[in-house]
């Protein structure tokens, strides 16, 4: 069944159809929320809420974009709102993820031909990048997650964010630069002599 058909059924109250939509979109939505909020629990909660809001709001969804894109926007907005509230609440501006949770939840990825040392390094790299990701601004974090984790295209990202594609492209470039800057500040992430740009 196509997404359109599932959405139509779900709109009529078909819970099974909606359950399928959940299955189809949960990984993307969860990862967006998990990375935007910086921790798995808030991520899971916001992701659940996004689906619930989608269910409630199906009547208002008229297929202007794909359901996936619409849902992504719901989740993204909810996370940004959450981060703003959190920031006001907290004296420290950023959360730091717990390394243990980080390691436990990550998908198992075979490093092609990598020896144990390299695999360990890779895991540390991931942790370092995850930390740096939490330290860049929410707007930068948002586009980085969309582009690099969810693999959304420029066009899709511009639909989700309601921005011109040109704006999306340059925001992504700046986000990447910001992330790199964080990692340089942290330490020897890139090894060797690095650029001062």
């Amino acid at each position, binding site marked *: 069944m196509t997404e359109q058909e599932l959405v139509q059924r*779900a*709109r*009529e*109250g078909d*819970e099974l159809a*909606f*359950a399928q939509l*959940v*299955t189809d979109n*949960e*990984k993307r939505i*969860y*990862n967006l929320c*998990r*990375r935007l909020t910086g921790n*798995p629990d808030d991520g*899971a909660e916001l*992701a*659940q809420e996004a*689906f*619930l809001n989608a*269910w*409630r*709001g*199906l*009547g*208002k969804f008229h297929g202007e974009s794909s359901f996936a894109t619409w849902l992504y926007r719901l989740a993204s907005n909810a996370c940004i709102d959450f981060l703003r509230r959190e920031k006001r609440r907290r004296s420290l501006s950023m959360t730091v993820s717990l390394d243990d949770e980080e390691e436990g*939840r*990550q*998908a198992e*990825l075979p490093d092609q031909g990598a020896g144990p040392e390299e695999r360990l390094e*890779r895991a540390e*790299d*991931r942790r370092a*990048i*995850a930390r740096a*990701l939490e330290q860049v601004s929410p707007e930068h974090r948002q586009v*980085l997650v969309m*582009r*690099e*984790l969810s*693999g959304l295209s*420029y066009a899709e990202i511009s639909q989700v964010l309601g921005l011109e594609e040109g704006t999306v*492209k*340059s925001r*992504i*470039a*700046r986000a*990447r*630069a910001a*992330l*790199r800057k964080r*990692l340089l500040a942290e330490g020897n992430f*890139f090894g060797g*002599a*690095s*650029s*001062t*740009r």
Partner: protein
Amino acid sequence: MCDCEKALDWISLDLDGALTPQERRELEDHLAVCPGCAALARELAALHRVLPELEEEVPEGFQQAVMERVRAEKVQALPAGRGRAVPWRRWLSLAAVCAVVLAGAGSLGRFWDRSGGTEPAAGETLPVQAAQAGAAAQAGAAPQEEAAPQKEAAGEGQGPELRLYTAMADPSGAREAADSGEVLPEASPLPTVGAAMNQAAAQNEDLTEAQRAALTANCAAWLQTSGLDPAEAGLLTVEAVTQTDLEAAVCPGEDQRARLDLDDYRVTLGSSDVLLCDSATLEVLGYLPTV
């Protein structure tokens, strides 16, 4: 020509495969002569490689949790927010049964005189509650925008008594669903009470005389055999069983106790007797001791 100013943008576009071949060549030309930009390109490429590996598996039970909340959504505006949400179809069929029981018991007259369109106070007896829940459930059921009646709508196939209740409960007053003037069909003999109730709950179709009688009979008979005062068996209030109820319930046997759960109904008769009934078969599973 690429220069340091454009380099960041072009490097980023290149990572996403968005440069034209011409632009790509120009970028490479620049990187060949500019160590700063070359390092930038290397480092952004490294991030681009590793970032996707941050993708995690969805936590276990996620979809289940979502669907539980979705299901809970279907029941809207239950009065006094008591107990756990009950699937709205069951409410509707039960509402139909109880409303007609009341009609049969002759208390219908009270409701005819009520002015329509106002919210009854909390603690009103079942028909208005349940009909209201039914109407609200439909109004509140998220995916449906149209007010048009659907197969499961309260209006279809219900007797005139319940139509009246839903009309009153619906503030807008215009219940298009309630337009058929049909009378409830005659009962066909049904094998068991349980099966009949199941049918009603599952398909939400017209309730026969036998089914309506069965519910009243269940409660009355139970009260009699258990030695409790049958009281004014006419007034029934039906809500969802709460956790407190489960803990306090007295059940005649282990089988009944095992079957009793948060999906079942607590039925208040008269002023004090509370029976706990199976939501599928509507038989009595136990009662709450009066304190």
